[in-house]
């Protein structure tokens, strides 16, 4: 067992964890933060994407002990706690960028990272930026539209 200290969605936790425990299982099974789902066991789907110290990571490919001392943001940490949506969440809703919604938390977290790196992406850049996140429902077209819409909103907010 290893003791870790980690801040998740603004709340500080200290826990004893097995060295092999995956971050995603720590979030889901230990902290009860089930907003981050699991879609595969090979790091292929991106459903589990969260932010660790400001960069998006696939939380199924990170051990909980690796997050020690770190700061994690999940989809549950976006927007207002009472249910207000942040710009990406709102854009996904308005552009019908989700159907079953299983890929959505990971898509949104990956898109945040993408927009941080490239606040004004082309449609093609959005597609490449989200290549590691699979969606089986939408065919991606509306996801691309949603990310572009959120980017526009970000641009407007800055000008």
């Amino acid at each position, binding site marked *: 067992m290893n003791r870790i200290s980690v801040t998740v969605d603004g709340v500080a936790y200290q826990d004893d964890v097995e060295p092999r425990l995956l971050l995603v299982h720590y979030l889901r099974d230990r902290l009860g933060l*089930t907003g*981050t*789902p*699991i879609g595969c066991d090979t790091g292929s789907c991106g459903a589990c994407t969260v932010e660790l110290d400001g960069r998006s990571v696939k939380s199924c490919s990170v051990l909980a002990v690796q997050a020690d001392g770190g700061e994690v943001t999940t989809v549950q940490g976006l927007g207002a706690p009472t249910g207000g949506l942040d710009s990406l969440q709102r854009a996904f809703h308005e552009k019908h960028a989700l159907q079953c919604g299983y890929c959505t938390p990971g898509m949104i977290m990956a898109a945040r990272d993408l927009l941080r790196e490239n606040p004004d992406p082309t449609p093609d850049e959005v597609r490449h930026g989200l290549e590691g996140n699979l969606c089986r*429902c939408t065919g991606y077209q509306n*996801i691309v539209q949603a990310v572009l819409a959120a980017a526009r909103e970000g641009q407007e907010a800055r000008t």
Partner: protein
Amino acid sequence: MTAGPADRTHEREVGRARARKEDAHLVTGQTTWTDNISVPGMLHMAVLRSPMAHARIDRVDVPPALERPGVVAAFSGRDLADGLASMPCVWPVTEDIVMPDHPPVAVDEVRYAGDPVAVVIARDRYAAADALEAVDVDYTPLEPVLDLEAALAEGAPLVHADKGTNRCYVWPLTTGEDWDAVRARADVVVSRRFLQQRLIPNAMEPRAVVVMPIAASGEYTMYSATQIPHIVRVLMAMVTGIPEQKLRVIAPDVGGGFGSKLQVYGEEAVALAVARTLGRPVKWTESRSEGYLATHHGRGQIQDVQVAATRDGKLLGLKVDLLADMGAYLMLITPGTPLLGAFMYPAIYKMDAYAFTCTGVFTTRTPTDAYRGAGRPEATFAIERMMDELAAELGMDPLELRRRNWIRHDEFPYTSIAGLTYDSGDYEAATEKALALFGYEGMRAEQQERVRRGDPVRLGIGISTYTEMCGVAPSRVLRDLRYAAGGWETANVRMLPTGKVEVVTGTSPHGQGHVTCWSQIAADVLGVPFEDVEVVHGDTRAAPQGMDTYGSRSLVVGGTAVHEAAQKVVEKARRIAAHLLEAGEDDLDFAEGVFSVKGSPDARRTIQEIAFEAFSSHDLPDGMEPTIHADHVVDPDNFSYPHGTHLCAVDVDTETGHTRIRSYVCVDDVGRVVNPVIVEGQVHGGLAQGIGQALYEEAVYDADGNLTSGTMADYLVPSAVDLPEFTTERTETPATTNPLGVKGVGEAGTIASTPAVVNAIVDALRPLGVTDVPMPCTPERVWRAIRQARGEEDAAPTDRRPEGTVPTTGQAPAPSEEGLA
């Protein structure tokens, strides 16, 4: 007068691009996926699976697993056999179909890699998974059965030795004139063999199940990631012996299905049995790689197709002979799945003769069953590919050939040669619109130009003018097809005392947007605000009756039930309103949620007021039952027949074999549209899956019967960079078979797009002598097809799969590959 609703003007909801009610909890992560559920005392189940495609089980020793930390129990197939019946198949398609026993956990023999052998129950998921290695199993390997044709030969090794054959059934359909006579008088007969590769459905949420027992009363609540909670309840009661009324099945948030969760799985039965034995809650969640073995696959057919025609391009007849890979066992609708296509091979075309047979074949692979489109994508692929091949043979534009043979708009309703009555359609209008959006003439000109200048990147144009049958289904037709259940759907609409509305539906959405669409339908009929409607679904206690969601049926059947039930509410409310207003029921107008007396518009009552009157019941008409709630059950008279024209342009690099979709235009006719945004989303997702089959996806097995595309890293689910931007448009020819005028949309994109893409690739390469490229059309296959057409390569290696693998459908491995596996 109460304030508010009476004075509003109600914009029609049906047809409006409403953003979805479903989204808020999904975009914020406040979800209830089955794997999120955790209850006190819950144990975790892990499943030990066969590492071999076919073997006798000599011994299963589970006690060593009990020594492992955290392990509470472990069971072999034999341990579980007493409490569980064989897993059900509800579609015995012929009288003499071979129906093998299917224990949820194998007892004597394993018949595919992944067949369950034992289960371990532990206090957490890691402990359960770890302890699997402590279960000791002795196997004696048996011959795998992988080649569909060889499986039918005399003396072939048998998947089910007790049955004496690998032939599951032979199902014929012959209509119109005699095929041989038509063939004899035809000027042209084109024959082709197509392989429908096996596909893995890949719903993004893996399967999961949680069972919570109350031991004292023998009650069970089962959460399952399923499309069909109602059907699961009935069949789980039968398999486990738990009385149906004691079993509640809940499909909470479900992350996609595409047919893979239109199933009743052994793990569900085992979780119930284990919870019953231990008296404790049990959870099982599959890993993705486990799901690739254990969740049913789709497609898997060899199609031998012949078309006969006159020299001037009139179709005379069609002959189709299928070999369909059942896999190792018959699951819920395994045998019937290819037959859902049997009626669709003639598609939108008129002809004189149609002869179809399907032979179901057992193999030692994961069972097949419904995957988005289920039988109809295969049929549409075959006929649309053949139309292109015939056009090439006749030297005719493929569109012109289609025009000469399709059912004209003025010929509807039209009974196809396969015996289906298409209620409505306008193939001309959809095609005209698609051609204009696509710029067909310009594309053809550019194609010629590129050939002229010897551009190594060829342009190809693919056409697919499809129809499909969905909206399953008229119960009597299902009876005639020997399907065990009916095809009806239910709705209950209730107005609450405060004037709000609950719609209870028997459909079970998992991404389709029923909550939004049913709200739109009910809001229009009742004249209440969209926001005032809530939709209840997916829980057999809250929505006790239903036939669930698959086969593009939910709107056509379930949405119609909502519409009709809401109408009944209005009629009941009218009785009360007439009583209160002291007018005859016929003297009342009802518009925008308000009853008013004709000629005296001030005498009025809102439907919300009537709802409260019904609740208090202080002043109802004599003898009236004190409620305005209403139920309705719809059994459709006919299937639903969406159609459309899809046009695909591809750039094919003849030097690398690489294909890029340059333009994809589709004009679909799904009848009246309740929510255009949702319809468009369904089309996008459908296209993605159809294109996936054409270009990327295949479940590959090696010569020993191991799934080599066994993880999501090996099986190519298309990503955002693998797919183009789609241009989607619609024509609206209302269905005449339901009051909403709607047709199904969930599967249309998948059904239409696969042949559009492959036709485009073959069209690009036809000047080089290429007449087919097997799916998925990877760069290597395209490149080999070109080389073969140039005579630079023998036919044999053209179909060669990646090293050490055999095609899933049919062909024997090339001799040179032996030993690679």
